[in-house]
């Protein structure tokens, strides 16, 4: 067996997709244990609040199944586990709090070391033609729509307080995650803000966002609603600059 064949068999044996027959069992067991242990530790680390919510036994069971199904490929272990929330969504189709909590855990970790970008302050919000302005967001921003009170659960777990029970949100909403200077942030959003952010991140102009707000609130309230939304986004440090279209 040449070295290339040997390394492929060794890798398969370590990851559990191949047998140990070609290798000394005692030694291979150490490498296979290290491999699984390292990946499960990485999942525990990133999805810490999800683990608290599910309990160690249930979490480790899902983590073990994830490791079985997902071999790492990136040089950085930080990239491992991105599909874990999706797997939990399949495992708990009637309990959206579990996968949503995991999404929040994962998103906060991703923004922790994402690209730096200074946010604009309110004084720099000057445009010749607001209708054609596009908002350029800080690169760390991401959001998702939520069906559960996962945000309240996450906050309680972070504060080491008694978390509320899982409930389905009465009104649709979402959560946005971003980094302000060095600190990861998150905030709940109502359905209207979710839609506006979705549109803005897709490259819509401020005028198009105002059109949407007008459909919900009536033309007379557009200026107030749009001003409030823009002040919130800028105040939270989400907007990097304005781009005149």
């Amino acid at each position, binding site marked *: 067996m040449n070295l290339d064949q040997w390394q492929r068999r060794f*890798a398969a044996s370590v990851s559990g997709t191949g047998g140990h027959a070609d290798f000394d069992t005692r030694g291979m067991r150490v490498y296979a244990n290290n491999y699984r242990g390292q990946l499960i530790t990485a999942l525990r680390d990133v999805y810490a609040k999800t683990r608290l919510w599910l309990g160690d036994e249930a979490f480790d069971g899902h983590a073990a199944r994830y490791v079985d199904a997902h071999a790492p490929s990136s040089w950085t272990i930080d990239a491992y586990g991105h599909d874990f929330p999706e797997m939990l969504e399949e495992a708990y189709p009637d309990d959206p709090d579990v996968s949503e909590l995991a999404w929040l855990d994962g998103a906060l970790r991703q923004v922790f070391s994402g690209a730096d970008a200074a946010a604009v302050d309110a004084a720099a919000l000057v445009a010749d033609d607001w209708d054609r302005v596009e908002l350029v967001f800080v690169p760390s921003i991401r959001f998702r729509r939520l069906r559960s009170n996962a945000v309240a659960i996450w906050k309680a777990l972070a504060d080491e307080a008694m978390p509320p029970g899982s409930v389905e949100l009465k009104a649709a909403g979402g959560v946005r995650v971003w980094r302000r200077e060095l600190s990861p942030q998150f905030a709940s959003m109502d359905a209207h803000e979710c839609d506006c952010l979705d549109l803005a991140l897709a490259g819509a102009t401020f005028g198009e966002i105002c059109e949407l707000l007008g459909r919900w609130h009536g033309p007379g309230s557009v200026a107030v609603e749009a001003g409030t939304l823009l002040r919130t986004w800028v105040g939270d440090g989400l907007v990097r600059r304005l781009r005149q279209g």
Partner: protein
Amino acid sequence: MLPSSLPAFHGFGLGLRVPHYADFIATQQPVDFVEVISENFMVDGGRPLDIIDRVRERYRVALHGVSMNLGSMDEVDIDYLRRLRELAHRVDPLWISDHVSWTGIDGFNSHDLLPLPYTEEALDALAANVAIAQDVLGRALVLENPSTYLAFADSTMTEAAFLSALCERTGCYLLLDVNNIYVSATNHGLDPDDWLDGLPLERVRQVHLAGHSQGRDMLIDTHDAPVPDPVWQLHARFAARLGHVATMIERDDHIPALGDLLAELQRARDIAAVAARRAA
């Protein structure tokens, strides 16, 4: 082309880990250098880069990687190397180190340091990747002996002979992990005292001291305990032969109070002082 020589640095340091970041940034700690895990800082932005900048204001830094995958039959990942080069530009490290091992092949990454048979074929593959890495990074690498849990019947040379040939072919330098020597030798029924024989000791730029644990069948390089007495004793015997070389305590798990690690480091200083007196 062989890289230019890497000046020696004589000092005592610690592996810098998360629980001690604030201590190292707030106050000058009694160390000559710190070693950081390169991959933890090969990021786009955020707190890790802020931390490394502030650490670098106070300390010399060695970059120690675990993912270069030099021993793989796959060619070394150029994107990885470019990211590492960016970090090196930022940090101006004492040196960049990684391991005489492989981490994966064909798109698979085990995130573990996998063993190589000590054969000409493995040496060819490793030396080719080391040459590429040194070229991209623009400097000689410092490479560490890993702990191993498998020995290979088809190995045609000792680990020391393998490393010696690697240094000769590539111009790289060595990081000797005394704990890894002890662990591997014990696991394979070898005498750790023989380990340095045949090694180009002038190529050694750094020594790691760490702890291990007893697994079911063999010693495991867990880095989660104080340096045990047999490793200290082996280090003391080696110190006389190695002379002045950068020495550090490496702890990756069950991280104790900083004072405990500094006390261990003082023991390393004391051993070096005794070795120097004997050599004089």
